């Protein structure tokens, strides 16, 4: 190692040392400890007691665990693709030659910046069965709206619907990708006699597929960890815990019931759930993602 490379190494490490310290303290160490606690019974007041795989075995017989897992999967399976399709649709429309594009873009983006607690408050009352605006508007067109908070079959649709309010982030990414699609591609597609639908499927979708893929993965990770809105809107999980999501259960196990070991074991499961779902999404779509630059 020459003097120069040694110097580069020392200085480089010095500059990135804040991240290294942070990574060890808030990344590596917690991961190792989470794994360790997941094999312990730990209520914070007394020292951890090693119980082997008991926490993991407990999950199999824990109805609340299965319910929360199921709710979270249903929420992710509906909210992620719906959000993806809607944000692409809005982006495609905004990418047309229209008057006031930047105004529309702003309007569609704004809900994404609202603090999530405030978002929860808004939808808490928008969906109120008797005094909410949603049911009032449904009533205007002759539909009797459900009791969103009291009916176990409507809490999850409510959470999915309210999440559509904040597609601004992925919409903006889609729009940026659409604006980079070379116009010549559409011209040649046109020459080949492709109509609007064919152009959309054969030009637009492949060209923006890297961003769609990115949004899909980010969407899955976000949906599995969804916490604030369900916590604020359905503090007790709603009727029959039908709106009780996994991240809320982990939080409550840890900080309400002081069951740190069980909460850590569930966090490990959540992590693997994200890995598996991301891997599945990867398997299904990654071969169809088109990278023009490569």
């Amino acid at each position, binding site marked *: 190692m020459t003097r120069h*490379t040694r110097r*580069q*190494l020392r*200085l*480089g490490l*010095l*500059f*990135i040392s*804040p*991240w290294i*310290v*942070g*990574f060890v303290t808030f*990344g590596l160490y*917690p*991961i190792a400890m*989470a794994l360790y606690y997941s094999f312990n019974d730990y209520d914070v007041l007394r020292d951890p007691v090693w119980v082997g795989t008991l926490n993991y075995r407990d999950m199999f017989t824990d109805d609340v665990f299965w319910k929360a897992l199921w709710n979270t999967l249903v929420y992710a399976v509906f909210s992620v693709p719906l959000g993806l399709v809607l944000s692409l649709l*809005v982006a495609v*429309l*905004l990418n*047309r*030659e*229209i008057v006031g594009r930047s105004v*529309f873009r702003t*309007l569609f*983006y*704004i809900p994404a*910046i609202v*603090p999530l*607690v405030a978002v929860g*408050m*808004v*939808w*808490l*009352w*928008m969906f109120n069965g008797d005094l909410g*605006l949603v049911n*009032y508007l449904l009533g205007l067109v002759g539909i009797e709206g459900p009791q969103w908070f009291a009916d176990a079959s409507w809490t999850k649709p409510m959470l999915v619907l309210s999440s559509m*309010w904040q597609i601004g*982030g992925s919409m*903006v990414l889609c729009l*940026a990708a*659409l*604006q980079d699609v070379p*116009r*010549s591609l*559409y*011209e040649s597609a*046109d*020459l080949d006699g492709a109509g609007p639908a064919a152009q959309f499927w054969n030009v637009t979708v492949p060209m923006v597929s890297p961003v769609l893929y*990115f949004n899909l993965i980010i969407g899955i990770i976000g949906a599995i960890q969804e*916490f*604030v809105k369900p916590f*604020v809107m359905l503090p007790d999980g709603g009727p029959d815990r039908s709106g009780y999501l996994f991240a809320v259960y982990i939080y409550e196990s840890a*900080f309400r019931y002081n069951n*740190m070991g069980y*909460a850590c074991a569930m*966090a490990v499961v959540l*992590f693997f759930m*994200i890995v598996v779902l991301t891997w599945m999404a990867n398997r299904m779509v990654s071969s169809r993602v088109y990278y023009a630059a490569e």
Partner: protein
Amino acid sequence: MTQTTSDILPAGQPDARGAAAITANAADLPHAQRNGDALQPPSPAPPPSRRDTSLRRQRLLGKLAIYTTLIGGAIALLIPFFWLVSNSLKTDQEVSKISQILPAVPQWGNYPEALRRLGMTVDGWAVYFPALSNTVVITVLCVVGQVISSSLVGYGFARYRFQGRDTTFMIMLATMMLPAQVTMIPVFLLFRGLGWVDTLLPLIVPAFFGTPFFIFMFRQFFAQVPEELLEAARIDGAGHLSTWWRIMLPLSGPVIAIVAIYTFMFTWNDFMTPLIYLNSPENRTLALELNAFNGQYGVENRELLMAASCVTMLPCVLLFFAAQRYFVDNGASAGLKG
């Protein structure tokens, strides 16, 4: 000038240019027009055929559909805001009358009352509002911490060559996938061991160790700075730290802006971290106080809850309009385009 695709089409089939013009985006438009003007055939325009008028009608209908969808969608997204503001100004009785769109007389007094219940006390000229001051203190320190630490680390990754650098960088990017739930509990126990629970420290200190996404943005930016600039600084006798501080940071205004704005939004809006660490009323943040408000008065005093929600989201909305281009233009796509 080379022939464009639209020019080699037989007359009477303006489809290509028409369709292309619709799909064209703003950046490409001048180019398209320039070509179109220069290459227009000199022969007089053919009389409009039936095919032309039906095409035009089709295009008009298409436009109409697009605008209807966009306007409808925008209204649907804005209704909750409108409803929120309108309800925040209604009286207690009016809130229950959903069909009444606007308050008969705007109840501006709802706002001071909501602020009072969020914990604000006014004593002469002295205003005491712990929820707000806590949130501001946390947010400002997090912004400062993120900008300094993320740019330092980004500079290290961008301008120094050392063994294992690229692997380390990839590991750092991979940690973005790590769910908060996994690290949340051990980190809590760590801070608990330090006696930091129910203080603002657990919400501030982690910001001083950099965040992968911001480090990534700084690195991309610093990597593009020409070597001559750094060389010049070195010849002038600037050390490594002062090169970063005096040359690199002043150059990276746009990245600093993005990192600062995103950190502000994230910290201001954060709910889970304060929920875990802060208990006593004098330590709570606005987001926590708003949730507590809902539990205490939410059912009886809905107009106050709405006013409190408006107060909480106002700084974010203001910041958004002040710094809009960072959200919808370069900010969002900077990370992907690199």
